[in-house]
């Protein structure tokens, strides 16, 4: 039994990599590539008649393999399947950090999973509240309900947009520039920020189209996402470099905080940096940037 650190609701989640929970080769050491979170998949990657096998595989992997600081999340089967409740039990018993609710459409869906998680924590003697949740929004109604979903549970650390099914429901296909997903993406970012949780962009399915992948990743960062799902370790490096603060951003954040501290000490009420007036949210953002840079290990200053 490998003890896992207590899951942290707020942490770096630039990259979340999917892997089939019943493939021994993947389970063994997907963490070596330095991904922030791995998502062991009990849903689409696992054939209907192997759902049982995948749970045993997942359970034993988590009990015997040291995933270290890599966050371990499990994508459970949809609430409209006969599988999800046993999925929740195995996740909690195995001590996963978080559960990704597939096809989440309402606060009620979150509550249903939350109740099952709480019951399982009790059953298996797991610290109550330990197991985190995240919601995958993959239908128009899920997107419309983004805010109520993001505020449905204290366990919920974020929401991910999952575009595969969503595009079908919207009668659109992948467009260069991401026009077809623009509103949905923005809605998820808006809801997550309003609720104070994180948000994650969908995965890029076409491994051979590196340019398309890079363009979509850059767009997700510009829209305000915290990170992106991915399907191959090859994609990690670009996602990380895209979602981490740039040197210029870190330097500016440092300057902001320093001048805030200096000006606060001298009792100034209105803050100016580089001759420009700055408001309180500027400083909050600067603290966030520095905290993130520290966590990633690219900022070694004293602030």
């Amino acid at each position, binding site marked *: 039994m490998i003890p896992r650190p207590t899951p942290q609701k707020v942490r770096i989640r630039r990259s979340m990599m999917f892997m089939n929970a019943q493939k021994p*080769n993947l389970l063994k050491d997907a963490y070596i590539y330095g991904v922030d979170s791995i998502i062991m998949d009990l849903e689409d990657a696992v054939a209907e008649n192997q759902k049982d*096998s995948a*749970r045993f595989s997942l*359970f034993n992997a988590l009990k015997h*393999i040291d995933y270290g600081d890599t966050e371990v999340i499990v994508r459970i089967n949809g609430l409209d399947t006969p599988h999800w409740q046993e999925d929740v039990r195995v996740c909690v018993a195995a001590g996963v950090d978080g559960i990704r609710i597939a096809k989440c459409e309402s606060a009620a869906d979150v509550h249903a999973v939350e109740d099952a998680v709480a019951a399982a924590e009790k059953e*298996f003697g797991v610290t109550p509240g330990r197991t985190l949740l995240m919601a995958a929004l993959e239908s128009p109604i899920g997107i419309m309900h983004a805010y109520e979903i993001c505020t449905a549970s204290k366990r919920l650390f974020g929401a991910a947009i999952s575009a595969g099914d969503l595009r079908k429901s919207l009668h659109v296909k992948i467009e260069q520039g991401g026009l077809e997903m623009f509103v949905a993406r923005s809605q998820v970012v808006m809801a997550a920020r309003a609720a104070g949780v994180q948000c994650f962009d969908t995965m890029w399915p076409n491994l051979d189209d590196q340019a398309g992948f890079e363009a979509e990743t850059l767009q997700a960062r510009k829209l305000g996402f915290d990170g992106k799902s991915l399907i191959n370790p090859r994609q990690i490096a670009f996602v990380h470099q895209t979602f981490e603060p740039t040197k210029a951003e870190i330097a500016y954040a440092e300057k902001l905080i320093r001048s805030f501290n200096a000006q606060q000490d001298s009792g100034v009420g209105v803050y100016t940096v580089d001759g420009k007036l700055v408001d309180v949210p500027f400083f909050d953002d600067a603290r966030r940037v520095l905290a993130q840079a520290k966590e990633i290990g690219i900022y070694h200053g004293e602030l």
Partner: protein
Amino acid sequence: MELKHEALAGTLESSDAQVTVRPAAELTLDIQSSVLNQYGRQIKAVAEATLARLGVTSGEVAIVDKGALDCTLKARIETAVYRSADLSAAGIAWGVLA
């Protein structure tokens, strides 16, 4: 746990193991492995411990190992046994398996 009918779990892919169980009067264990020379003893020990924990006291158990880790081997044996007893879909006593 009582084996009711033949059941199989796992694959013959590298790093996996395929486990077949079927009811029989006595407990027998057949092990083939690509890493027999260096891990045969451990494979046997894991298989015996897993079967004992599951309370399997009779039946034919055949393992074709392709270099599976202990945790994979254990998972495949558990799946095959639970499947054989028609108990693999829900209500697994996860707390006991650890």
